[in-house]
């Protein structure tokens, strides 16, 4: 029972960051229909940015975190404007290839700049965990969870309570009509990609002090992001959020009770099952056509 | 003398999308050798009917019967295998292929080459290929597109693309051909040519059900006309009768209009 509770707690905390990743990708995937292979790299980038600010430049941790997220947003915007906008309207292969090319280039640049040796980021939180009855959790992880929830709520507010968000939702539902109604599609796409990338970078920056930072860390994150998007349904904000938690729970319990080696496989098996039995995602209401 | 069984019987067909009723309790027959036109204002449900008959949509109730077999639940390719072929309202060709290749693809049903046959290049298969190519040429001559068989389908003028669609549909050896607005985008002389073509298609033992807006085509080719409005059939009969039917006129022109 104690173990069970601990797993639940771990899953909740991990789920928060997974939710960030998933929401970021589902927005991009849903609104822009782009298979975003750079999502994992933005995750890595966020982590490296935090490392750079906090460890190399000595910035205050919390400021560094904010800066890392901002850098993620900027990189996302840059990627969209430089790489995606010129090929807008090309078929999905072309876009896919460009994204793959960008993914390769980004990961190699990271490797080149910081080398393959894993880096760690010092956390300003006390090392001793907080113990509540049978479960223990470190302050650092509580912080991660709190910020993740904050960002999720903030993104939701952005999408549902601002004009920008309204335009994004309109573009998601019907791009042509939205354009006819005066929505500047180009700007929306840049904003969407920037937002999604920023969330991925945030996830990376938040987890950097918890784990270690190395160039290929984004690959697993990217694949999990895809899994979450499928679980939740394309473009479905809360679906992705729930999907993030579900994936974390499946992984935690799968790793805990079945086998830890197959931990990363849990997500994939899950999505294959979902796609066979409920291709529109666990939460989607509208019928999706692939 | 008893009525010969209809080639196509639509029986109480209904399709709705959520709360929106697209077609409602649609019932009519098409007899072998006939040319029947399905007309009605935009949004009346004509293309939805085609989609429901040919397996692209599943009806909510009712059924389509081809030679007595229900078509419900069958996939479009299975329905084509029975001999029911449809064309599409929005121009639909294999854009990246040439005119000749388009028709050759349409002749798929006429071939039987298997994977093993393809890999081993058996003599029967090579003979079959030759026959298919001859058939493709014949069809192109029939439809009038034989002058530039190596042109890419996407490079053809709009009217000729519509003709190519019909050729591709014919290639699949239909007994019943459903044409969805085949004359749309054609200029008057092309339209007249098309009207003549329809009679020649019927002479190849093909029964035709077509959806059309162009009244010249409808009046020129149809044995019978079925009028659809807001998902319901409001009239059916000979073209001349339909033209004068007040319900029909009202549907097209709105209430309060005096008939021509």
């Amino acid at each position: 029972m104690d173990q069970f509770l601990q797993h639940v707690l771990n899953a909740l905390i991990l789920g928060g960051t997974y939710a960030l990743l998933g929401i970021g990708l589902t927005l991009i995937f849903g609104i822009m229909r782009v298979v975003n292979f750079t999502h994992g790299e933005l995750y890595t980038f966020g982590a490296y940015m935090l490392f750079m600010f906090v460890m190399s430049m000595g910035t205050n941790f919390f400021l560094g975190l904010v800066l890392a997220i901002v850098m993620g947003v900027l990189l996302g915007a840059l990627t969209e404007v430089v790489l995606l906008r010129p090929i807008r309207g090309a078929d999905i292969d072309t876009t896919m290839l460009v994204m793959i090319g960008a993914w390769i280039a980004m990961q190699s640049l990271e490797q080149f700049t910081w080398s393959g040796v894993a880096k760690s980021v010092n956390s300003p939180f006390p090392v001793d965990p907080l113990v509540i009855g049978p479960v223990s959790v470190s302050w650092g992880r509580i912080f991660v969870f709190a910020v993740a929830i904050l960002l999720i709520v903030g993104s939701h507010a952005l999408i549902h309570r601002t004009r920008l968000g309204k335009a994004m939702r309109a573009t998601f539902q019907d791009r042509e009509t939205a354009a006819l109604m005066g929505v500047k599609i180009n700007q929306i796409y840049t904003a969407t990609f920037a937002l999604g990338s920023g969330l991925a970078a945030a996830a990376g920056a938040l987890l950097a002090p918890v784990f270690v930072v190395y160039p290929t860390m984004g690959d697993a994150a990217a694949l999990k992001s895809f899994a979450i998007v499928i679980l939740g349904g394309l473009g479905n904000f809360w679906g992705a959020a729930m999907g993030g938690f579900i994936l974390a729970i499946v992984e935690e319990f799968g790793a805990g009770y079945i086998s830890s080696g197959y931990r990363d496989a849990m997500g994939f098996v899950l999505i294959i099952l979902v796609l066979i039995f409920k291709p529109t995602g666990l939460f989607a209401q509208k019928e999706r056509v692939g | 003398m008893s009525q010969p069984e209809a080639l196509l019987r639509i029986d109480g067909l209904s399709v709705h999308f959520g709360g929106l009723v697209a077609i409602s309790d649609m019932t009519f027959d098409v007899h072998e050798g006939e040319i029947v036109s399905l007309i009605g204002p935009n949004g009346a449900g004509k293309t939805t009917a085609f989609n429901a008959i040919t397996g692209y949509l599943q009806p909510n109730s009712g059924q389509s019967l081809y030679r007595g077999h229900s078509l419900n639940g069958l996939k479009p390719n299975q329905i084509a295998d029975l001999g029911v072929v449809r064309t599409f309202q929005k121009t639909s060709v294999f854009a990246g292929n040439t005119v000749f290749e388009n028709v050759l693809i349409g002749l798929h049903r006429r071939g039987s080459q298997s994977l093993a046959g393809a890999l081993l290049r058996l003599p029967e298969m090579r003979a079959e290929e030759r026959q298919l190519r001859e058939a493709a040429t014949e069809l192109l001559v029939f439809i009038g597109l034989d002058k530039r068989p190596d042109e890419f389908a996407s490079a053809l003028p709009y009217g000729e693309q519509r003709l190519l669609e019909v050729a591709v549909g014919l290639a699949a050896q239909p007994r019943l051909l459903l044409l969805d607005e085949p004359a749309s985008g054609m200029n008057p002389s092309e339209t007249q040519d098309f009207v003549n073509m329809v009679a020649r298609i019927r002479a190849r033992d093909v029964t035709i059900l077509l959806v059309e807006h162009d009244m010249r085509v409808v009046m020129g080719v149809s044995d019978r006309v079925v009028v659809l409005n807001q998902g319901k059939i409001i009239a059916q009969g000979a073209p001349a009768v339909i033209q004068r039917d007040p319900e029909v006129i009202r549907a097209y022109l709105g209430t309060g209009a005096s008939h021509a």
Partner: protein
Amino acid sequence: MSRYMPWLVLLIFASVPLWMQDQYFLHILITSGIFIIAAISLNLLLGYTGQLSLGHVAFFGIGAYASALGSLGFDVEIFGYILVVEPKPVWLAFMFGIVAAGLAGWFIGKISFKVRGAYFVIVTISFAEVVRLVALNWIDLTEGPMALNNIPPVTLWLPGSGETTFWRKLPNYYLVLVVAAIAFELIRRIVQSRIGRALVALRENEPLAMSVGIDVTRYLVIATIVSAAIAGAAGGLYTHYVRIVDPDIFLFIYTVTMVIMVIVGGKGTLWGPVVGGLLFGIMPEFLREVAAPEVQWIIYGVSMILIVFFLPQGIMPAVSRVWRDFRYSPSASAQTTKEGGG
């Protein structure tokens, strides 16, 4: 492309060992050749059938592992039963690899085609990841990260020397060349047949293809099985040449390499994967001299993006266009031309 081109190319490659003594370069050609076979197989699925399959390395790896295990023999416990397989002759194990890969292809074909577009991409990627993790964790069977090693090389009966074991590079080179030629020809026959037309039809316009009686699911599954089986053959060649196989063979980066080869070379063309395979098989070797590994990859990433921007159809279609323009230019002798177009 002219009827004699394939023979000419085959001849040229067959002659290479006669004038190129450098064993290292031969090695490069062998590994490139293996990748070319994989790229040819991927091209059927990605290029001709238009399916965004990004898990192709799974078929390659399953073929490799199955062939390795077949030739090494294995014993494994499944649900309480112990399965013992004695080492088999390499050629038999190789067949086993092809069949295993083909079966995987059938499985993927059946489940993946319930979902299309971007979802299909994700399923295929996930499948490859799951297979990798199985290879990594099912240590009883696959030795996990310790790798299967001492895999025997190919042994064939050859006229003149009897039972020959392919220890050296030369016979392996010719083996790969022969298999590549066979793969090329098989794909060519499919593509130029009624089946190939059906595949292209469903890539170009699926509703229209269905309306003329083409059973989409059936043809998608055929394409996947054939594609997977050929990839499995490439995997088998790999395993008996390199003679070590570990779960890293399933890394996504190898799928990416194959995809790059196909798309840069020209997807949906017969020679595209060959050109792409040669380019991305040999280019790294030249780059290796001048740049660090990370810089190499940056160059790939950037060159991929550039090719996509400037030659979106890939290299072969651009070459064909130039060739066609050249042949039909006004200054050339008056020949019957394809009218219009271009």
